[in-house]
């Protein structure tokens, strides 16, 4: 991914829907980010994940339980934010030459509706005899401040190691 996910036009539209009450009060958020690359890609993806979730929930405390694979290639967590919003995310990296994400979706569930955003879109499907490619298009909005994810990521790793729920703030 080149530009931050928080600037993706589908995501900023969904955020506007939440802030405008189009889906009622926010109840839950589910995020999946799966990329191709090496270990450095994973750390970048984790920071992206916290940034996206913070953009949705706002600064909040979160009580969560995390899991990670022994090789550290995949992390999942489920928790409840201080204002009651259920938050869960999966972030992992598939080993290979770095390229576009395999999966990047976020779902925002409200009391009166929900929004599913494919963070890899909008894009074109170009099919030729040589194969397919998917050039993206669309204007990106101003980036939401990414904030500092380091403390949250450290706590998430601690929860995965201990098998216990922990409380973090993002």
């Amino acid at each position: 991914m080149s530009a931050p996910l928080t600037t993706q036009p589908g995501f900023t539209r969904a955020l506007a829907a939440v802030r405008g009450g189009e889906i009622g009060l926010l109840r839950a958020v589910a995020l999946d980010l799966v990329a191709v690359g090496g270990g450095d890609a994973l750390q970048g993806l984790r920071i992206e994940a916290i940034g996206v979730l913070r953009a949705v929930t706002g600064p909040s405390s979160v009580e969560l339980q995390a899991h990670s694979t022994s090789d550290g290639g995949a992390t999942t967590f489920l928790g409840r934010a201080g204002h009651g919003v259920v938050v869960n995310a999966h972030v992992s990296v598939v080993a290979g030459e770095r390229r576009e994400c395999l999966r990047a979706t976020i779902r925002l569930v409200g009391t009166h509706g929900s929004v599913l955003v494919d963070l890899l879109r909008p894009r074109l499907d170009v099919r030729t005899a040589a194969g397919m490619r998917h050039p993206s298009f669309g204007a990106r909005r101003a980036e939401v401040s990414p904030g500092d994810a380091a403390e949250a990521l450290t706590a998430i790793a601690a929860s995965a190691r201990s098998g216990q729920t922990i409380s973090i703030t993002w």
Partner: protein
Amino acid sequence: MTDHGMPLGIGIVGVGGIALSHMAALRTMTSAQLVAVCDVDASRAAEVAHAERCEGYGSVEALLADDAVEAVIVCTPNMTHEALGVQVLAAGKHLLMEKPLAMTPAGARAVANEAAERGLALAVGHSHRFSDQSVAIREVIDSGEIGTPRFVRVVMNGGWIWPGWQAWVLNPALSGGHSLHNGTHLIDLASWWIGEPATSVFSVGQHATSESLEIYDYLVMELGFANGASAVCEISRGERPRSASYLELTVVGTKGVVSREWDAEGVLAWTDTGLTAWAADGFAERVFVRELEAFVASSRSEAEVIPPVSAAIHAVDVAAASETSLREGRTIEIGASV
């Protein structure tokens, strides 16, 4: 008792909503035949029996005394499953129990033990294993194309809590709570795709429709596995708008991802009710036919039961632990005996 040249004689206990799906499947099958139904509402049983051209009884005892009944599908509320399951098996009939197998881990084992001691087939209606998409996903996993699964996301969200849910479903003492009533479907898929039982569960719930609900109509369960894999199982009956229906199945492996959304391969339709997605033709019907064909095969000792009884017990173990997690707000370890 079973003559392999003849259709397996099926009796259905309880002729509520889910029984209609089983009856519809049976009408299309040649390997099994509906021979009797019973219900606590004898007039309802008689009405269904007339329509299905089979016997109708007002009691389980009467149905079990019918020699034409070789196997029984129990379609009654959850709190009856353990006692009815043992009763059916004690009568020497093969059993397909609608999920969950029982309301408690001990109850699930009691039914399983009865089947094992009598050498009878015991299947549990984890019907999602038989859907086109579930089978296709499992085939992708088995092919090794996405590597070793390390994350599963299963989402089954809908808005049909009313009028679809009856009073007993809303009462955790009678249904076991949302983890037991519907959550077992998701737990079963996650464990099946990861390839091993879960070892822990942490759950978060909401009363989406009303704070006065005694169950969590919105529920998210996070499963942990000994191999480091994890799963997020999200199920809701309290979505808005009420017509909302969203299912997502994703498996992330060490080499890639397989995923699909419920109606992604179906039909998008713009009608006066707005944009709707229609499922692929015959999708729902095939689920129950496949489930019943597998049950018939296991009853005739021609195939192993699907899912294995151990998996059905495991689903109850995890679901019961999930309800504990909801109450206590902590991660619950699943018994090592699973």
